[in-house]
Structure formats: structure tokens, C-alpha cells
């Protein structure tokens, strides 16, 4: 129950922070603009596509590439949303107050994590609303869209966990954001060199984020990919909980 109280408090703090609104507004407006830009060429070529009989529609040509762009936005936005969760609390001297209200380290981390994740999911919801509006004038491939959205939700959950973990370990929110971005980029690029050498089945490839995200972007959902996201998320949260637990022993 205490954790839910912290979750509510965090939500309230996010709601009244101009930065969070500004960030969400920029991302949503940018994505809406991109969607309009991508729809233009598609509409211009629609009759040609129909005449050629190609089994490809606006899900493949517009929506999936558009949602792939959103991955970049998520990678950049998440560290900014999560950077203050624990590092800001520590700097403001309010972390001891949370301990003094009987919250466990796990309660503190989960309350903050769920609040940040909830905010990210709201942004995703705005994008889903755009897709739903488009679906009124066409029939998207719901299977592919569902798989892609699942991938995005798992990505957000994982990046939020990494962001909270970095915030737990960093002394300053800016450091937390930078380190979360570095960890994310490392996960995205870890298999780059082995891919260049033509190796696609090594440990680096398994560790790489695109290995598990890209299949979902093509409509393929496998339990191994979901498990990878769950493992990385759980690991990041465990590290954050461990670090917050040490806070009571710090000088």
C-alpha cells in the first residue's frame, strides 16, 4: 500500500513538472508530423501499389517504419524521464524521508519505476490513438501492429528500469541520464562488430537489443525475446533496489 502511495506521489510530481509535459508534447508532436510526412508519399503511390498487386499496405509502408522511429524517441526520452527518480531524491535530501515512512528499498524503487513507466505508456497511448484514427479509413494489419506495440511496451519497461537503476547509482540526475543513454546505446550496438564480421550467433548478438526488438517489429513474437526483456528489466530493478538498500548504510 505504501508503494502505491509513493506511485501516486510520483505521478503527481510528474504531472506538475513542466519538463515532463514539454518532453511528451515534443515527442507526440514530432511523431504526428512524421506520420503526416510518411502518409503523403504512400497516398501518392497507393494506386500504383494496387495496380501492381503487391501484398503490401500502409501497415508495412507507413505504420511500422513510423513506430520504428518512435524507438529512437523512446531511447532519448526515457533517460530524461527517469534521471531524477532517485538521484534527484538523494540530492534533495528526501530519500531518508521515504525510509522514515516505512518504505522498503523495493517499494521505493518499484513506486518510482511504475510512475515513470506509466508516463511513458501515456505517450505511447497518444500514438496508439493516432493509429486508431487512421484505422477508421483503412484496415491495418492488427497482428503486426500488436506485436510491434508489445515490443515497444517491453522496450519502455526495460529502458525505464535501466534509467531508474542509473538514477539509483548516479550522484547527479544529469549523470544518471547520460549513463542510462550509454547503457542503452551499448545494448543497441554491442553486436555491431560481430555483425560486420558476419557472425550472427554469438553472445554479443544475443545480448543486443535489436536482436530481440526487430522480430517484433516484423510481427514475430517469441517467448525467448520476451524473456530477454524481462531478464534485463528485472536485473536493472534488482540493481536499483540493491543500491537504494545500501543508502541506509551510507555516510
Amino acid at each position, binding site marked *: *500500500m*505504501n508503494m502505491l*502511495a*509513493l506511485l*501516486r*506521489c510520483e505521478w*503527481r*510530481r510528474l504531472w*506538475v*513538472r513542466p519538463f515532463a509535459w514539454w518532453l511528451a508534447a515534443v515527442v507526440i508532436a514530432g511523431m504526428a508530423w512524421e506520420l503526416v510526412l510518411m502518409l503523403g508519399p504512400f497516398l501518392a503511390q497507393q494506386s500504383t501499389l494496387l495496380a501492381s498487386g503487391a501484398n503490401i499496405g500502409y501497415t508495412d509502408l507507413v505504420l511500422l517504419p513510423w513506430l520504428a522511429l518512435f524507438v529512437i524517441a523512446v531511447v532519448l526520452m526515457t533517460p530524461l524521464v527517469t534521471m531524477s527518480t532517485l538521484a534527484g531524491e538523494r540530492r*534533495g*535530501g*528526501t530519500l*531518508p*524521508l*521515504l*525510509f*522514515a*515512512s*516505512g*518504505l*522498503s528499498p523495493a517499494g521505493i524503487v518499484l513506486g518510482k519505476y511504475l510512475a515513470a513507466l506509466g508516463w511513458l505508456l501515456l505517450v505511447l497511448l497518444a500514438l496508439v490513438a493516432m493509429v486508431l484514427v487512421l484505422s477508421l479509413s483503412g484496415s491495418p494489419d492488427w497482428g503486426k501492429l500488436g506485436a510491434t506495440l508489445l515490443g515497444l511496451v517491453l522496450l519502455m519497461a526495460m529502458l525505464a528500469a535501466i534509467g531508474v537503476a542509473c538514477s539509483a547509482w548516479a550522484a547527479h540526475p544529469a549523470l544518471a541520464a547520460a549513463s542510462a543513454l550509454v547503457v542503452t546505446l551499448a545494448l543497441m550496438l554491442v553486436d555491431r562488430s560481430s555483425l560486420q564480421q558476419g557472425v550472427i550467433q554469438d553472445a554479443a548478438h544475443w545480448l543486443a537489443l535489436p536482436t530481440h526488438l526487430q522480430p517484433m517489429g516484423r510481427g514475430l513474437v517469441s517467448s525467448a525475446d520476451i524473456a530477454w526483456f524481462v531478464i534485463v528489466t528485472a536485473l536493472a530493478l534488482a540493481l536499483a533496489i540493491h543500491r537504494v538498500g545500501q543508502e*541506509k*548504510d551510507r*555516510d
Partner: protein
Amino acid sequence: MLSWIWGRRQNRQVTENVPLLQLQHVGRLRAGRQAVHGLDLTLDRGQVLGLLGVNGAGKSTTLGMLAGALRPSSGRILLDGRDFVEQPELARDLVGWLPERAPLWPELTVAEHLTAHARLHGLRGQALRTACTSMLECLQLGDLRRRLVHALSQGQRQRVGLACALLHKPPLLILDEPGNGLDPVQAADLRTLIRDHAADGGAVVLSTHLLPEVTAVCDRVAILHEGRLRHDAPLDDDLSKVFMSIATTHTVEAA
């Protein structure tokens, strides 16, 4: 007037026949050195304990441990007979803490702050609304309720911090320099508040540098010096002499 604040909640399950707070050989390392050494202390309901000491004596560290914000390196803290280190969740119902310089969330208003703290301490529904409204009234924060915390003066912030510590009617109240930034009238109100809390069966640990504040409200005085308890006795008329003697003697010894 303030009796509503101190009414015990029915579900609190406070045991009446054991001391509210017991410290048994409590120690704490800080920056590689022993900040608090084997502290033994007992506090019963109805008592106000003044915790004195020069800067760096270990007062804030001790209060942090009593509030559950710091873990002792050694020893036990029993809160209402239960091991506080093993059960840190006891803090939710049993402890109210005002740290030095009242840390607050700057983006929230005063009213939002109180609501958030009330929820964190388990208050819900009507009980939450009543507690917040009464606390705003009691600490004269009504006019500030919609003001953002970062726009408050130090005295106002201190009162908000105090309201947050008192909201859930904790039996044990821990106050670290609560008079910081308060004007004389507010300081007098604070003394009344502390006395009322003790009169209603609560206990208070008060850390301050102001000896008149101690003589006005405390029954007992404990003096810490270099992390050790040098004095623990009922309030004495010659408190300032005792304090100066301990500070000087042990500083000279250390030199």
C-alpha cells in the same frame, strides 16, 4: 486545543507496558570512523528528551537511526518492544521525523505535500482529509496551502515539515532543530505542541542548539560528545554548566 493531533489511532497496537524507545549499544560508522559509540537510552511515553551536543557530536546521525533513515552499524533499536532494524516498516505508524532543514519536494504545493505524506503514512479517505485540514489550521498553513513549496520561506518550510511529521499522529516524534527559521510566536507554539504531544502519551526526542528551548520543554537531557553519551539525567537548573563542562572536559581530554 491541539488534542486531536495526539489521539492514538485504534489500529496502532502500541504496547503500554514497554518503553516506547530503547537503544541498546547502538553504534554507527561514518566516513570510516565511529560517529556514534555504544549508545544506551530508554524513552518512555510522556517524556520529552533533549538531545544536546556540539556540532559533529553525532546528534543528527542518532536521530536518523531513530527515524529509520540510517541503519545502525551495531546494537539494537527497539520501538515499542519490537526490533526497529528488523522491522523498518514500524516507522510508518510509530515515528514522525522532522530532519534538519525540512527536505521537501519543490514542485508540490503545501496541500499536495501533506496529502502525499499522509498517504505514505497509511492515511486514507476521510481520515486523510481531516488530518490534512486540521494540520493546515494548526500550523497556520491555511493561507499557503496552494503555494509551491519552493516559494516558501525557511520558517514556512519548517512548519510544512513539522506538519508532515505530525500528520499521522505518531507516538514517537523526532525533531532535529525544529525551531530553525521560526519567529518567537511560532517557536512558542512549537513548545506547546511538543508539551501537548507528551501530555497525550507520546514521546519526543528534540535536538537543538538552543538551551532555552530545552529548558522550556524537556524532562530529560542527554548530551552527546564525540559520539558517546556523556550525560543522561532529568533536566537540571545548571544545564548550561553541565553542557559546557562536558564539551570542554572531553575536548581537552581528546587534545
